[in-house]
């Protein structure tokens, strides 16, 4: 008795590939799976109850067995039972699910931030150290990683099934998600929001490495300048320092320590200066006039790509430590005052390459 080799191959392929759920590769994945399996259990029980009721009633009360029907109006007690029990179960799921949701979308303060821009039809990841990746993302285990996502064109969605996380990349605003990888390996990255012709090819790899391997990778794929340094050059080339400098008569607020600070807008509202705020302040300054400063900042919309905005945001974030403040002052003298003059958009310093691992 032998099974032909083709059938055997098929069987092996079937058994090894026949997973019912993706690998659990992040800290939140087991929590997700717990809720998911609870819901499957409840659904199975519910379905079994319904099927049992229907089947047993159909047998017990078939016309042959039970020729005369008994007219029954209803039963408030039963109605209450099958209202309250499902409602109770659903509410449990609601609360449990809401906890997981909050966890996935509330990054911890110490998360390492990686910027991702989605565009038709590729993902570009920018590490703070200046590494760039297309359609892949290298991350270490044991470290909270936050992704700051945006789209250059249409809606995309950054999905890592193995981590059980997914987040829409929207044109015009940042969205964030965070995770902590637990198991080294290579996992699928999908775009899951239909985005046009090559939607199904906007896929890639999430490469999870041990911290040592990750360090090695960082060193080998650096482009020579960190994201903040690129941002600094952009800052200079766009003449931001003409107003944003440390001089006492500066026209714009000093950007040192501005990231994470609570600012007061001209209309009295308080706002938190996070990444989204900084991006908005660069692209739509009219809506973010700061108290005490004249509303004269011009918009840079159309002059910078989203990659460039990432670099600027990262640079401004880096101004939270003192020595960078000095850097800001020095770059003031690099270029002449030229407010409002258009500079070539998104100018990237030389030596920057796109490195795919």
């Amino acid at each position, binding site marked *: 008795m032998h099974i032909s080799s083709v059938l055997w191959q098929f069987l092996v392929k079937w058994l090894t590939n026949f997973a019912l759920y993706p690998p659990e590769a992040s800290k939140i994945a087991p929590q997700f799976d717990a809720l998911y399996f609870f819901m499957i259990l409840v659904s199975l029980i519910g379905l079994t109850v319904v099927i049992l009721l229907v089947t047993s009633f159909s047998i017990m009360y078939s016309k042959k067995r039970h020729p005369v029907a008994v007219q029954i109006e209803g039963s408030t007690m039963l109605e209450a039972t099958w209202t309250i029990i499902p409602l109770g179960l659903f509410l449990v799921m609601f609360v449990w699910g809401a906890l997981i949701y909050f966890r996935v979308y509330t990054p911890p303060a110490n998360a390492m931030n990686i910027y991702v821009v989605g565009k038709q039809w590729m993902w570009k990841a920018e590490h703070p150290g200046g590494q760039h990746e297309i359609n892949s993302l290298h991350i270490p285990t044991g470290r909270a990683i936050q992704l700051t996502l945006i789209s250059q064109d249409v809606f995309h969605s950054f999905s890592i099934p193995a981590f059980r996380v997914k987040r829409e990349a929207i044109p015009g605003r940042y969205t964030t998600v965070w995770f902590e990888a637990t198991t080294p390996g290579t996992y699928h990255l999908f775009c899951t929001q239909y985005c046009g012709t090559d939607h199904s090819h906007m896929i890639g790899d999430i490469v999870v490495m041990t911290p040592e391997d990750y360090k090695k990778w960082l060193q080998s794929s650096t482009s020579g300048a960190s994201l903040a340094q690129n941002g600094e050059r952009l800052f200079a080339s766009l003449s931001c320092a003409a107003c944003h400098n440390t001089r006492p008569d500066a026209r714009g607020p000093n950007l040192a320590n501005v990231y994470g600070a609570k600012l007061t807008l001209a209309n009295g509202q308080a706002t938190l200066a996070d990444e989204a705020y900084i991006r908005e302040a660069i692209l*739509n300054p009219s*809506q973010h006039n700061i108290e005490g400063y004249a509303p004269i900042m011009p918009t840079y*919309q159309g002059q910078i790509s989203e990659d460039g905005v990432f670099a600027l945001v990262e640079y401004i974030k880096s101004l939270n430590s003192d020595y960078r403040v000095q850097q800001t002052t020095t770059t003031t003298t690099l270029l002449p005052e030229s407010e409002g003059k258009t500079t070539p958009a998104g100018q990237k310093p030389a030596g920057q390459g796109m490195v795919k691992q």
Partner: protein
Amino acid sequence: MSDSQVVTGNEVVVHDAAEGAHHEHLPYQRHHFETYAQQSDATNFAMWLFLLTEIMFFGGLFTAYLIYRNWYYPAFVVASHQLDVVWGTLNTLVLIISSFTMAMGVWCAETRRRRGLVISLSLTFILGLAFLGIKSIEWGEKIEKHHVPGFHYSLQTFLDPASDPKVHKEYPKDQPLRLDMARHTEIYFFLYFAMTGMHALHMVIGVGILVFMIVRARAGAYTTGHVTFVENFGLYWHFVDIIWIYLFALLYLISRHP
């Protein structure tokens, strides 16, 4: 409004199934209704329901207006100052008077005054045309100034108010907008054109139906007891009027105080 007919046993209405049997009902009562009162009730209810759908339809635009005005208030203020309040007020008066003439028309129909009905409907028609005429003048001005959203939209008057002497004289305090806020005036104008355009479309339909009604009214169709058509159209006309009043307030009167 009575919803169902109470059974007393004495009011069973029986119709002959045989062909050609003459029914005891008014000539303008449709066959599937038992009584004219039922027909009148049903069509009236249907019109109210239809107006509810219209509210939901405009609702989407009002929602967009609420959101964008909240976000881009300075742009909305400056853009709204481009609208001529005189024309707007005149249009509002025109419509309010037309609602009055329409209500008069309904009264005439109910009291079987054929001539009065024809006059009322004709006045309403003329006022409706007047509204559309004024609206087209306003739109013409916007087109000239390149304030129609889209490919030929011009930001110049918002970046440099002095380039528009007429409006600048009226609102000397309006500051020039910075580029990013100026771009948002296009959103205001899109809302302006979409909302007044949708409204104008409803006016055009109304005016068209008025023509039909005037012809029928002259033939006496609505003054023999069959008033529901006029009543229901009156509802429609008043609704279109009310929408305009909201549009006037929301689009024309943003920050107009001196």
